[in-house]
């Protein structure tokens, strides 16, 4: 499946782009995306933690992606 992934903050810097398309096997999960990211962009391993939002909600590793999902890499937040 093609997955369009957005990224903010240091995650965008690591990806080198605010939006990247990934080609993942059908029924991939949030955890699979994280593994893929860590393999392709080892700098992600240097972050305090890494979260993924699906359709504007934090998503557990077990969540399965659907075709139209809005997927966003959420590096450690620092608002306030």
């Amino acid at each position, binding site marked *: 499946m093609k997955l369009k992934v957005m990224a903010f903050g240091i995650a965008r810097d690591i990806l080198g782009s605010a939006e990247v398309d990934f080609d993942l096997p059908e029924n991939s999960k949030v955890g699979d995306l994280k593994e893929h990211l860590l393999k392709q962009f080892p700098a992600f391993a240097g972050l305090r933690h890494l979260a993924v*939002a699906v359709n504007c909600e934090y998503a557990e590793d077990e969540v399965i992606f659907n075709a139209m999902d809005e997927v966003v890499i959420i590096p450690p937040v620092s608002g306030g």
Partner: protein
Amino acid sequence: MRHNIQLFDQPLDPALARQQVEDPSCGGVVLFVGNVRNATQGKEVLRLEFESYRPMALREMEKIAIESLERFRIHKMSIHHRLGTLQIGESAVIIAVSAPHRKAAFKACAYAIDTLKETVPIWKKEIFSDGEVWVAATP
């Protein structure tokens, strides 16, 4: 509506946040104003840049307000966050809480800013004279 959640690209107005929560039935209003500091760990900061995944940030801030209204006996809560480039001393966030009893207002305001810093997808970059760093991104 007992909460007001907003992201601003222009300077925040503490009076607006306060007036949104004030009510003739409430004796106490507590405000937290988070300002940009001129230094971090002894190093001079020139300015800050805030960015956000806006739709999710608004939802997460709304969750904080709704959770605060449920957990504490407060009347209203406003959460306003600034985005873009901020100069030293400018306000990045304002949280205003009204409550019949001030202890609840203090607790809810502290809970809201603590939680905002944990969950809301907003990121700040500190700009120094010799570089820049995403705050709290790495250990």
